[in-house]
């Protein structure tokens, strides 16, 4: 008999900040300063030791797409973006801009969706 239980959730962990914003848990290399939000044991870039840190709440959309085909657990169309968190890693995130509209350049973390995805929305920077 096979065990159909899904593996542990590998998506980045998001926590709320005291100012009401959100940030993503990640790690920065003590040797080369590269960052990641994925579970790793050593720095993927140089093999150096990692220190836990938090990234956000702002980031820049590197690219985005709207998926129109069914993917288990999701109802198309849904919009997803690669977001480069400021001075931090690139993460995949739900983008709340409706399909068909241009993606914002700057976004702000808004927590996680009911499905557990990292979520972002257009940022209004001062």
């Amino acid at each position, binding site marked *: 008999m096979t065990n159909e239980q*899904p*593996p*542990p*959730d*590998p*998506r*980045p962990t998001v926590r709320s900040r005291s100012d009401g914003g959100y940030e993503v848990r990640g790690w920065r290399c003590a040797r080369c300063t*590269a*960052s*990641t*939000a*994925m579970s790793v044991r050593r720095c*993927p*870039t140089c093999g150096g030791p990692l220190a836990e840190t938090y990234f956000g709440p702002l980031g820049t959309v*590197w*690219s*985005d*797409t*709207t*998926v*129109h*085909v*069914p*993917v*288990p*657990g*999701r109802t198309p169309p*849904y919009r*997803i973006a*690669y977001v*480069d*968190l400021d001075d*931090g*890693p*690139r993460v*995949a*995130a*739900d983008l709340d801009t409706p*399909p068909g509209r241009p993606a914002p350049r700057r976004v702000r973390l808004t927590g996680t969706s009911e*499905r*557990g*995805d*990292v979520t972002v929305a257009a940022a209004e920077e001062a």
Partner: protein
Amino acid sequence: MTRPVYVRAVGVSGFGRFPERALPELCWDALDDCLGADPGRDVEAVYLGNVYGPNGLGPRVVHGAGLSGRPVLAVEAACASGSVAFAQAVRDVRSGRHETVLAVGCEQLTTAFRGPITPQAGDPEGRSGMALPAVYAMAARRYLDHYGVTPDQLAAVAAKNLTNAVRNPRSPRSEPVTVDDVLASRMIADPLTRMQCCSLTDGAAAALVTATPGPGLLVRSSVFRSGGPWGAGSPHVWGYDLVRLTGQAAYEQAGVGIADADLVEVHDAFSIGEIISIEALGLADEGLGGALAVSGDSAPGGKSPVNVSGGLIGLGHPLGATGLSQLAEAFYQLTGTAGDRQLDDPRLAVVETMGGGTAGVDGNACVVSVLEAAR
């Protein structure tokens, strides 16, 4: 010890939807085509490329093919599984470990998935809904926004390859496809429409790799690399640098440049994939690869024919079989047996396969092979 390595024969099964057939049967079809009436001959070892098949598939394939007793090793390298099987076979023969090795690749996607390939739940991007069309769509969107590539250029790649497939008896396609047809097909992951995406396909392919001189292909090089980290700060779209570095190493080992190639078969799982690959391989400057399909330069008879076979978009993409299917096209072209799609006396081919799907990695695996006619 290094020595010349040859591809003595290739074989392919039908490519299509065969949910009623057992996966080993597709492999045996390819092996019949490759080995003919004398299966086994001098085969000393077997590599089998596959992604979603059952465990024990390799022994079942060799057992039923009359090759029992040979060591068989399954290779999983995402879309590049078949090409990695080939690269391993070449390495074994070149090093003197074996005289003759068989590389087989196969996949049966129609029994594994109803729709697109399901993203891996254990991968942070897969769990976030990043299906493979979305991975490539991200790169396509980046190219549209930052390099001036146009939707028409993306569509021209797909129209070229779907039209090329008309001349390939392995494809059921009988009518040429236009850019308008491609753009009018339904949206899969913006900006990639259905005709810009490879189909869920079943199939198998094989190659017999040997140190014995004779007709077929001389393997000038076959280089296999895996990607480094990819993310914020990476200079290029996903996969670009892995293909570039693998290609450079393959050219250096072969002592040639991309300008010497008479044909190129590249990994066009999605239209943007061909554009990225030909740029990374040096056929076009960064951001300018899309123009080659529009100008006709990458068409059969053009300056640099790309995916004369029809590519993955035209023939389908049975992951484990794909790399060996690409190799088979190089074999047919360089041995003058490509039928209606035969190019004018080609001598040198470059074949590139790219596998991915792991978050944060610039490609699970890439193989670039440089192949010359051995006459």
